[in-house]
């Protein structure tokens, strides 16, 4: 069977390592002259997206579950962390209420709702970051996979799920700050979020989480279980006839993926400073799919690369040509699909491969 760290994974992890070392040093040692502070958070955000993309690739690329609702798991992880950060504010809120976050004060809540209990503890919150998305994925998957909901039907109900959650989180009655979400965080584990050192620390944590996520994903997909996932993707019914309980496999990978997405969300919240129901929007989840497709589905590293690339393009384009950037981004998507059938990663690898030996062109008749 294939080795855990192949060439592409090796190169990517090496690059990530260099980044992890260089960025904080460049920022802290030179007081933001070499690497400006905002670049640190920006890169941190990209890496969160990358981890989220890896999570989606795990279910979509390998098991054929096209989740159009993965943003929900990301957002739930983000909210779990956001709730902790809100509790950390303590009585430093505008109303100086030691128990209630500001939004609860001005909407006249008189006590903290039960589901906020425990979130003042960092470790409890960290657990919830994985447990809440995991539990939702389990519940959702338990029903859907047993009922053999597949293909577009599954995709659309995942979309319905995230859309329903978005509407629910919009409601102030839910106790999550309505559409403003959770914001105005002060510090995490006592480190002020506005300090460069904390930001660098969060960046490093994110890089480590991404590396870990990639390795876990790689370990899973190169195992026999990973091969079965591919069987399910390609011929689900046939897999059943071989004695594999497809729903169990799907549930496993879906929950693992959701937890990974939750971790990505948890790291995202302190770095961007806000978590709000917009993260649940169907469009956001579609964008995740697009990262993966653009990077190269079923390659893990490609997914991560795709996320970083699209996010980078968005950052640059919205600044360079604020009025026309959608043309650029839309064009990019079209060109990639038309000319890079194996995604960006495919292009990179083909370019290197071609240098070594010319690969014979694929001569498939156009039907």
């Amino acid at each position, binding site marked *: 069977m294939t080795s855990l760290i192949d060439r592409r994974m090796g190169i990517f992890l090496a690059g990530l390592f260099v980044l992890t070392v260089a960025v904080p040093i460049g920022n802290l040692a030179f007081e933001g002259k070499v690497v400006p502070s905002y670049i640190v958070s920006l890169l941190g955000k990209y890496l969160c997206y990358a981890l989220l993309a890896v999570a989606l690739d795990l279910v979509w690329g390998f098991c054929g579950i*096209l989740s159009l609702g993965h943003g929900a798991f990301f957002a739930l992880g983000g909210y779990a962390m956001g709730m902790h950060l809100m509790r950390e504010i303590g009585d430093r809120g505008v109303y100086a209420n030691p128990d209630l976050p500001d939004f609860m004060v001005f909407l006249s809540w008189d006590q903290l709702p039960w589901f906020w209990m425990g979130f003042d503890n960092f470790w409890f919150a960290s657990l919830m970051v994985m447990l809440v998305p995991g539990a939702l994925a389990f519940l*959702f998957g338990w*029903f*859907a996979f047993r*009922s*053999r*909901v*597949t293909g*577009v*039907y599954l995709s*659309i*109900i995942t*979309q*319905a*799920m995230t*859309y*329903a959650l978005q*509407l*629910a989180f*919009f*409601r102030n009655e839910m106790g999550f700050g309505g559409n403003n979400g959770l914001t105005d965080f002060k510090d995490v584990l006592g480190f002020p979020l506005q300090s460069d050192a904390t930001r660098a620390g969060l960046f490093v944590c994110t890089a480590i989480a991404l590396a870990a996520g990639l390795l876990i994903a790689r370990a899973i997909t190169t195992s026999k279980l990973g091969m079965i996932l591919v069987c399910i993707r390609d011929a689900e*019914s046939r897999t059943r006839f071989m004695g594999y309980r497809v729903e169990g496999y799907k549930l496993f990978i879906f929950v693992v993926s959701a937890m990974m997405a939750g971790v990505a969300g948890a790291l995202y919240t302190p770095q961007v400073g806000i978590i709000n129901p917009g993260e649940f929007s*169907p*469009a956001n989840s*579609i964008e995740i*799919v*697009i990262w993966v*497709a*653009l990077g190269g*589905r079923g390659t893990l590293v490609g997914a991560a690369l795709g996320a970083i690339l699209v996010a980078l393009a968005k950052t640059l384009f919205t600044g360079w040509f604020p*009025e*026309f950037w*959608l*043309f650029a*981004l*839309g*064009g*990019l*998507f*079209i060109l*990639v*699909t*038309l000319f890079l*059938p194996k995604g960006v990663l495919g292009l990179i690898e083909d370019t290197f491969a071609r240098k070594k030996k010319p690969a014979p062109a694929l001569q498939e008749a156009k*039907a």
Partner: protein
Amino acid sequence: MFFLRACLLALLLPLFAGPASAQTPEFDALVTSLPEGSYSARGAVVGAIALTGDPRAEAILTALLDGTLGVIEATGQVVTLTPAPADALTGAPVPEAEAERIRVNNGLRRDIRAALGILTLSDPDPAKRLAAADAAFRAPDAAQYDLLDAAFQREEDPAVKSRLAEARAVAILDGDFPDAEKREAIDVIADRGDADAQRILTPFAASADPDIAEAATAALGSIEQSRMLWGYAQNIWYGLSLGSVLLLAAIGLAITFGVMGVINMAHGELVMLGAYTTYAVQETIRQNAPGLFDWSLLIAAPLAFLVAGAVGVAIERGIVRHLYGRALETLLATWGVSLILQQSVRSIFGPNNREVGNPSWMSGSFDVGQMTVTWNRLWILIFALAVFAVLLFVMKRTAVGLQMRAVTQNRPMAASMGIRTNWVDALTFGLGAGIAGLAGVALSQIDNVSPNLGQSYIVDSFMVVVFGGAGNIWGTLAGAFSLGIVNKFLEPYAGAVLAKIIVLVAIILFIQKRPRGLFAVKGRAVEG
């Protein structure tokens, strides 16, 4: 409020003894005082003007209502502004005056309309009399009782007469009349059995007089009953009409996605193009041939079909055809297309809403019993069903439809049967896109015409197609209407937000029971 007005009138009335006293200086004084005072005080003045019965009253009040009555600040002279400035009282032309329009607000407008009602109660045109009775009904005023009663007595047109009876009844209820008359009035009102009746009678249920309270309560009870039944009917209608909108938005997708299996994220933008085509057509008509405005939608529909269809063909030829067999990648590419289309429209037409008007035959509403049916919704329902029927016919009954289905099920084999797959693919996608364009024409009548128009329908459209069962056009129909109706029955209880959430959760649960949608294609054919 009514009380206040009644008092004022009581004070003013003796000054103007009867309708005979035309051309009085009092009338002039009243008109001159129109520009001053609070809106409610001026409302009283308007009432007084009407009761003078002065022949100029109607013209002056109409001008006030239309906003063509002005005042020259310096002199306080009241003037009519159209066609040319003229003294409101004498009609003498006023040369180039700095006239200020006299402001009216809602309350005042209501008073004017009521006053005009009084003045037109004896108009020879029954339609005007009906409107007058209506106005009196809407603005109950005990002071008008005599006029209404007189009008009622001499009225011969049955429709107007019954409306006058109601107007008289509300006037009775507004004033100090004997209990017996009041109870009779309550019966008259109760016979209407509608929301207006409910509105009028509700205060009397708490009347100090037990008889009146009882009569009102009983009347209200029966009104409540019939209103509840009508309420169900109304909800079904709302559901059907929401369903028709969903159907229109989704039906093009039922082709491109349901039949062809292309995840077309640009579907919403094709709908948007249809709406903008309608806008462009209306603008052209407004500028060049305003008389054709009522035809604008009929002209826009084929154009929208062609525009969106052509864009669809371009998308298919340029992008989608390279991706058959890579169905999911169409998602990426068409998302790109959707971004580009959105931004193109934003660049060309601007980011703001564009105004698309309702032609006269799509404006307003009519009542079926106690149910209000708006014309635009009714036409949209008819339109949606017509589009559906045509599409169904094309897909199921024509050679082209058969070829479309064959090509999407097995492209190489279809080619081997001699079907021009390229052509059929382009045609199919173009058809789906064109229908999206048609949806845009309809949606322009009820929603924003903005670059975001498409985005707001794309999620719902996919939901409908999948809920109904992808690949089944009937399923799309059933899906759209059932989601519409369920939504509309939930909304009054749960509110719009919760209703939507509940519907989404219901879809998720429903799919567990029927993993391939409402009208699932079953059997070996799909399981392979």
